[in-house]
């Protein structure tokens, strides 16, 4: 009926459909953007319609939502959380401060560009982005997933050296446990 290639294509379509409609967000409010997550998740905007749901631990999660600026101290925890997540995994940068530092451009304690340290799939602009913007960011991510373009985890694995170098530059005392990638 089908040949192998077609069959694997169909499997891919099913997989991507399931992946895109079931995005579990790890419960980590890294910055002030966390305040817009409750409205996004609850009755007014109800992100659960799209299958977006919180998950308590990184092991179960698909999406790491960086809600705002990352201080150096948090970056370390975020990297660890990200590396404990299971592939495929996606990162959404939330708010201007993840893009270029935003209003914290001269702060000594926040990083200015998130994609130097973690592979970002989608950025959401604004300070702070409204829940509608968050949902539109998720929908953009869903599009990318269904097109197979949300390959942040792959990029991270392939360019691990480069990411590590950047991370080490910021995190002075590198005491991260080694992962068997």
């Amino acid at each position, binding site marked *: 009926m089908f040949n192998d290639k077609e069959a694997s294509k169909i499997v891919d379509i099913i997989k991507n459909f399931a992946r895109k409609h079931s995005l579990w967000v790890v419960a*980590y409010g890294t910055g002030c953007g*966390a305040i817009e997550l409750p409205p996004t998740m609850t009755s007014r905007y109800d992100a659960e319609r799209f299958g977006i749901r919180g998950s308590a*631990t990184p092991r179960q999660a698909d999406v790491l939502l960086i809600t705002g600026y990352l201080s150096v101290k948090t970056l370390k925890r975020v990297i660890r959380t990200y590396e404990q997540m299971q592939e495929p995994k996606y990162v959404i940068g939330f708010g201007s401060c993840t893009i270029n530092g935003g209003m914290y451009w001269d702060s*000594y304690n926040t990083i200015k560009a998130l994609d130097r340290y973690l592979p970002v799939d989608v950025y959401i602009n604004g300070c*702070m982005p409204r829940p509608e913007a968050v949902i539109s960011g998720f929908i953009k991510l869903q599009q990318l997933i269904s097109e197979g373009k949300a390959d942040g985890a792959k990029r991270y694995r392939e360019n691990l050296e480069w990411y590590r170098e950047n991370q080490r530059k910021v995190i002075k005392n590198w005491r991260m446990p080694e992962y068997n990638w």
Partner: protein
Amino acid sequence: MREKETTLYFGPQHPGITGNMMVKLKVAGDTIVKAETHVGYLHRAFEKLMEQRTWMQSFPIVCRICVPEPDPNEENLARAVEEIEGREVPERAKYIRVMVLELSRLAAYFLWMGGQAGTAGLYTVPQWSVGDRDYILDLFEELTGGRIYHMYIWAGGVRRDLPGGFPDKVLRTMDYIESRLPEYDKLMFENAIFQKRAKGIGVIDKDKAMEWGVVGPPLRGCGIQHDVRKDEPYEVYDKLDFVVPTYEGGDIWARAMVRRKEMEQSISIIRQVIEKMPGGEYYNKVPNPLNWYVPPGETYVKTESARGEFGYYVVSDGSLKPRRIHVRGPAYVHGVSLLENILVGANISDVAMIMNSLGVCPPEIER
């Protein structure tokens, strides 16, 4: 050598934590032997940044200190500048400020209610209350343009006047919210299991409460009637008629009930403000922000936020930029020394509830 007690990391990546902070718990069984608050995950060096900014540029920064309730910060900085300069504020602006402050207090209480119920495992309340809070945020959006960060109150008055028909909208929203309160009572405050979870947990010693620096609803939950709005009335609070509710017990339940009663008071204050709102200017002329030299001086201003006394110690050296703005958030004491002390002997199940009822909010600890 391995320690005897188990180490539990409560945060920063934890569903029960109130913001990006960490409480390192040492537990024996499920009883906490030692708790250590770790903060700094949200440190953006605001106080340093404000030394680099002009006075006016500091206003967008201070509101980001407290995410659930930014307006007391703006209010504090505005009042501090006005006090050092001796600048007068129009009466209308004062009323508008009180209205904004009370609206933000109400919004913060709704968020708190969701958090308190959510940490107790009652997931319907957050869904309702965060949704209802959004009606208040809609008001803010119409008034200020921002849902969360308003940058609305600034030295000399407020940024813009009330839009047309706004008072009516506020009153309608207040009517709606007041009609919702009995439902929350039924679902949460009168819920037998919630009472079982909340009563007798996280008790603050009444005799020591003042000395330990407890402020706001936790203090009033100990039965001590103190409120900055009454003790040292700012803006027009001395012209408004409201009571400061207190409850005995000092536990989660007392604190919850204090907040519940204050919601009614806030609604009443907002109605009075709109009723008494005078006409006139909303803004006194200030110098060009880029050339705004504030005379040397220092002051300590405080505002009653939803979590208690929010104080700013502001020093000006007469230049364009603030010399020092040091923020004293209520969570500074609640979240570190008080939390570390009352968590000892508590149960793991209650940590999140205690933190929520104390209103621990990390951004104001580390800024």
